[in-house]
């Protein structure tokens, strides 16, 4: 149940991000939209690894090797999501850096100012 709610939230966030990136004219808003999309994806990843009533995937006295597959949360998506978050952070940082330089040269943050090359 929780997993479904999380999953749906994640998917919704992806769609909201996509919608925002395509409709907003302000570069900063576009960057935020891409961030939202990324976050949505991360939530989806986590939701996919979740096991209902599961526990942390640490094999010790509380969780024996035999019952681990049933009771433990799948650790791989969690591992993946950490990497994805780091990458997302880097990409957002770069986008923001470009936003700053664009503002410096053009004195505007509108995406419509970026149409020098065409055809």
């Amino acid at each position: 149940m929780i997993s479904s709610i999380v999953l749906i939230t994640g998917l919704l966030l992806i769609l909201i991000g996509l919608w925002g990136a395509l409709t907003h004219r302000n570069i900063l808003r576009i960057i935020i939209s891409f961030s939202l999309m990324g976050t949505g994806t991360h939530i989806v990843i986590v939701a996919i690894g979740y096991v209902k009533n599961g526990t942390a995937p640490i094999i010790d006295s509380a969780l024996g090797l035999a019952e681990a597959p049933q009771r433990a949360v799948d650790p791989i998506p969690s591992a993946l999501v950490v990497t994805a978050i780091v990458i997302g952070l880097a990409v957002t940082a770069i986008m923001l850096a470009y936003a700053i330089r664009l503002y410096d040269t053009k004195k505007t943050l509108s995406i419509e100012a970026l149409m020098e090359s065409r055809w």
Partner: protein
Amino acid sequence: MVGSLLHPLNIFIVGLGGAFLIPLLNRLGSRWVASAFIFALAAMTLMSGISLLEVLNGSPPIDILTGGSKPPYSINLRAGLDEAVFAFGVNLVGLIGAYYFLREKYGTILIYLLLIMGIQGMVMTRDLFNLFVFLEIVSIATYGLLSLRDTPEALSATFKYLMATVLASNFFLIGTILLYATTGLLNIDDLIANQQAIAGPIGFAALIFLLASLLVELKPFPANGWGLDVYETARGDVAALISGGVSTGVFFALLKLLPLFEGQLEIIAAAGVITFVVSNLIGLQQTTAQRLLGYSSIGQIGLLTIAACLLRLANVDSATFLLIAGGLFINHLFAKVGLFWLADYVGKARLQDWSVLKSRPAAFLAFAVLLAAISGFPPFPGFWAKWQLVMVLAQDERYVWIVLILVGSLLEAAYLFRWFGQTLHGPVESQTARAGSGALVPIFALGLLLIISGLITSNLAGLNSFWPLIPLAAGALTLLIAPCPAWVQCLTVLGMALLGGGWLISDVTGLNGLFAVLLLAGGVTIAIASLYRNDTRPGFYPLLAVLLLSLPALPRASTTLEFFFIWELITLSSYFLVVRSRDAQRQALPFLLFSLVAAFFLLAGFAILHADSASYSLSALRTAGPNSAVVFVLLCVGLLIKAGAVGVHVWLPGAYAASDDDVSALLSAVISKVAIFGLLVGTYVAIRSEVSLQLAHVLGWIGMLTTLAAAMMAVCQDDMKRMLAYSSMSQLGYIVAAIALMSHLGWVTALYLVANHLMVKGILFLVAAALIARTGKRLLSDYGGLAGQMPLTFAAASIAILAMSGLPPFVGFGGKWLLLSAMMEKGWYGPALMTLLATFVGFLYMARFIQAIFLGPRRPDYADLEEAPAALLTAQALLIVGILVMSFFPKVLIEPVSRAIDPQFASTLVWQGMSLEMIYGTWNPIPIMLLAVAVSALLFGLFWYLQHAGLFKDMARRLARNLSPLQRFYAFCRTAFGVLTPPWASMFWSRVAVTADDLALCARSIYTGNGQIYSLFILYYVMALYIAAGGLRYLWP
């Protein structure tokens, strides 16, 4: 120990470690940074090179395990043959290109190293999530490098690039995680092994997300505006990295995931072909160099995608796959990267400003090499790969794909070589290219690599002998003596042609042997005339060497591959010879394009022949297969285009007229015979099947129509070289008709006419060369009364004209005579009548040539004209000797010809003596002779009547002023023939060109420059892919 040091895993250790060390080394000094940078790249190149050698020597793919456990519990990488080729190629280019980054800040150098390392990872990893990580490393490094140019356009373009690639990598991540959700697997090998587990709506969506993401990263039409903008605005060396490096990584990722997309292969190939054709179409409209290269780049990746998918569908073995995919990849990598580097070196955005290259011959040479490589000319890898690709596709009966690939290639050649022409003939600026010569070294290195890799691929493609490469070697040798005076170079070329050509033809026998002797002797004789110019002609002599040696090499070819290879060498070298002339800027391109279309028809014909007979041997043409008629038609169409048959002749007069005068002579006298030789070889196939014999009849009609139409157009010309060009076309029509007769007598006639035309047109074009050299005038109406001043030239021209016209006693009479006899023998009365008509029209223009130039009143300004240069006269004299020998001792030629022709034809000629009477004595010439006279008289009468009956009254009145009766007669003929030969062909072909331009304009209107629209296109692209792959069935139960 050494072995473990060179293990491919260390590529990543060196790459990452180097990147970490560089900031520290920067504290010690920038020299340290540069050294570490080069060292790391060299080490990576060495390691991938060693892996390549190992797998080439047959060792199994090198598996790279990490984390101390086996997959799927850890990430593994693999260096198999494909991986090693791609990784080594990228490393090599990365190492060479490092030159341009040596002086950058350490941060840039660090990012560069990471980028190259990331591409290696994308190529080698076998883990899906790891692939995502490497993709992101590569993307982020690219974003960093793109910031090196911070003009407003570059920043804008980069932001659009960021939006698109972030979108794509998000899709990749979603696809990966959905795939994990359905299968619980991330290891690519496991995923492929458990493909059936990828089912249901989620599994399907996962696959589509992955596929869409990779395709979008490859910049497919129409979702690629963001990529083009970056190619246009980025620094050339960074654009080179994106085009050669990043795209390679993504393409290889697609390649390794292809087994997952087994059901979508055709859709992926369709995406590729749309991209290939449309990009190259839009390329026609480009005016800036880097954007044009961007279109070409995207097109080439599209071609790679097509090849990868269709080869998988065709189930080819791994060697063939590597030859095609690897060949196309290496070709794109080296050539495109080289051109982007060159763009930096030139420093000019607009195509027309590239003419600054002219002041740097070395750079110009590199430019030509790179363009030829991209366009798929030999000896570069792309040529062999494309050849093999077409062979495989024909075997798989994918004809539509072949057509589309060839159309795309043609469009690409069109804009690339138009660019070349613009560069060569653009206005000369005082300002030279801005970068130092050092920047050229990496470009040369790539040119050299292209040649080396081309030679390696040629071997893989099945070219096992070295002799086809002799022309290229001769060209290269001549290039080395370029600083010597012109006459030294010319004599060297002649010497090499005699020695090398003599060796090439030494063991060629039969019909091929005859042609080889003819082409070699004709080529060398006419090339002697080139001695008359002593100005430096940059590039002329090396090209001449290639051409003169390719000509005799062609008849030596015994396989279709050898034939096509040498054919393309002739095409390319003659194009470069033509385009060198200042007047030829507009004419050279049609010449090349029609030649290319001709070559493509040959390629298709050979491919179907190979699919039919499973053989590359030219002798397969002599055995009938199920598709002989198709092969025959394809070969004939190609060869007719090359021979300038009516309708597809529009390239011919311009090219012949605009070339340098000695090149025109070569084109008309010798190079045109190459198409005739092809016809003789190619039409063997017709003899074997009844259907094709009917087609041969059509061929005969086309030949005679060409003869007649071209003769009429020749009468209409005032420019003497154009007149000779049309005359050449007309004479070739006779030869085509003679071949089409498909009889022993017909073929003897054809060869007889070939020899005749070679000598006659050689002389006449050299006469034109002499006249132009002395007076600088080209129009017949500017001449008059030169017989006294240039008696030797006059004599030569008269003999040639007599020999051509078919008047006794010269060789042309025999030819015409044989032709009529052969036609009567076959019962071809229509073509025979046209022969007579054409002979009459021929008289008109030939008489005019002599009359207008040498007879009549002398012009005062030519009072102290000298006789022609000795070199020209020598060449003419040699050709006249040939004419005399053939006229009075026809047996010298005809007997070996008769023996050489396939005994398939029943021999109808019996030679008894040496004189003409004896030979023609076998038939009774009187009735036909009478007929000829009667027809000519009738025609003269008709013309006379028409002129006097006032049918063309207005015209006659206009013409009457200030004209002598003879001039008036010619003016009348010109108008009448002008009416009879409407310029439908040129109208049609210019319409085709305009339509292509319009389509290109239309197609590129989607590139509005708006980043959000580009992102929207990506979204649409994903949806379209989902629907095309059949995703709708998952949307409702």
